[in-house]
């Protein structure tokens, strides 16, 4: 299992595509940090949990797309042809799928780390600010549920029809265009710009209202369930 995981990581992360993806992510991150985050949101500092959350929300569509792209490594035509061999091995499909998901998740987490690391460098270089501990909670709340959900839902869709993964990549863009209720504000980033203003104090500490917590937990739970629900080997008919 660990060997499969290591090999899948190698396949997913040690190639030109991943390097390109990381470069695009870093470039976009720099644009967001220098163009938007630097101004701060809701009258707070650029390094406040709110502004950092806003930065992550802006990065989220790219992270989502990147994570789903990693999944396409398992659903491409080439991968499906190789699956003829791997399906004939005694490795239980659930274990095999988990090892592969773990590798894709590692890729997603690595991209996330790049994003957050870039922000940390930005904060240090621009403001000499290093209080990263306060940013952990917004990072977890913003990124973890959608990434786990991306993985779970992406895996399922990729097994159904590989092209559905590409359609699914557009989901965050669609969410950004839709007027979402307040509880789903983390899904399009509006939460970070509006909620602190409603707290009535200047530079409020980071808190999450119950409906938002519930929505994120739901997303996380759903993602985890989908992730656990491994599918039948591709192409097997009855």
């Amino acid at each position, binding site marked *: 299992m660990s060997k499969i995981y290591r090999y899948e990581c190698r396949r997913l992360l040690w190639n030109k595509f991943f390097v390109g993806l990381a470069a695009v992510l870093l470039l976009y991150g720099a644009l967001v940090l220098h163009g938007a985050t630097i101004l701060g949101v809701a009258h707070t500092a650029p390094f406040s949990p709110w502004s950092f959350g806003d930065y992550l929300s802006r990065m989220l569509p790219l992270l989502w797309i990147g994570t789903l792209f990693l999944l396409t490594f398992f659903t491409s035509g080439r991968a499906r042809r190789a699956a003829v*061999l791997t*399906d004939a091995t*005694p*490795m239980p499909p659930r274990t*095999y799928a988990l090892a592969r998901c773990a590798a894709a998740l590692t890729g997603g987490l690595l991209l996330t780390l790049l994003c957050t690391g870039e922000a940390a460098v930005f904060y240090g270089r621009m403001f000499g600010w290093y209080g990263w501990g306060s940013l952990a909670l917004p990072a977890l709340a913003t990124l973890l549920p959608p990434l786990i959900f991306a993985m779970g839902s992406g895996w399922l869709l990729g097994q159904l029809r590989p092209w559905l993964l590409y359609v699914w990549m557009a989901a965050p863009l669609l969410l950004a265009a839709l007027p979402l209720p307040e509880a789903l504000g983390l899904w399009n980033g509006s939460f970070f710009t509006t909620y602190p203003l409603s707290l009535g104090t200047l530079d409020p500490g980071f808190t999450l209202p119950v409906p938002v917590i519930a929505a994120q937990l739901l997303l996380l739970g759903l993602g985890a369930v989908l992730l656990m629900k491994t599918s039948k080997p591709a192409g*097997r008919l009855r």
Partner: protein
Amino acid sequence: MELKIQNVTMTYPSGKQALKGLNLELKSPSLIGLLGPNGAGKSTLMKLLVTALLPTGGCILADGKPLARAERTLKANLGYLPQDFGLFDELSVTQFLDYMAALKGLPNPKAAIQEVIAAVNLEEKAKAKIRTLSGGQRQRVGIAQALLGDPSLLIFDEPTVGLDPEERIHFRNLFSRTAQNRLVLLSTHIIEDVQSVCDQIVVIHRGQILFTGTPEELIQSAAGHVGAFYAQEAAQERGLHITARVNTGKGVRCRAVADVLPAFAQVEEPTLEDAYLYLISREAAR
């Protein structure tokens, strides 16, 4: 290892019936050649045997247990080379085999990998990335992964495609050696391969078994139905199935199979190819 195929039917969602009430028993040690024209159902049968497909009717028993329930046990003892397969191009040959060894759960992968790499003559390319290999070399990697872990059931679908004659002989002998204590199922179009190594032959046509038995039995079945004649002697060739034409000093000498040979044809000793063609042509005429 013993495989029993009982009244197996396979109909694809498109409605195409690939296998019709197939019955067959395969026992180790044996090297079985699976013959049949394109679209006869050979690959479907192989996919059913490796549980890549599930039959729409009938059942397959592996050592007495239904395959659906004994899937893990079967796969733990299975080496499979499909006709059309992909490899992870970004890995080296050794890495790919290591990956497959991990999937097969081999306890000592290193030795097993070295062994199969040597068996398929790929030592020089062991560290090369798969994307740099030629078509024949890729085919050999496919064979190597099937041999990994010394499985007791080996299923090869067209394994010698893309190999040069020397390699083909090498693999023919390898399969023959391997089959001494295992069950090896070999599907191929190359009758020569079957003739030299297989101890049993199964001929499938249009989803049904036309023949099971030894190569000698198949050859015997065509005795008296193979004839030779010069092209100019033949008043008409109707009812004849020409299997070869050879230019000789006296003209074009034809070899043909038929239920009833014409008078101008001189009866000849059948080969396995003649017998196979006779079997298929007779079935086609029906």
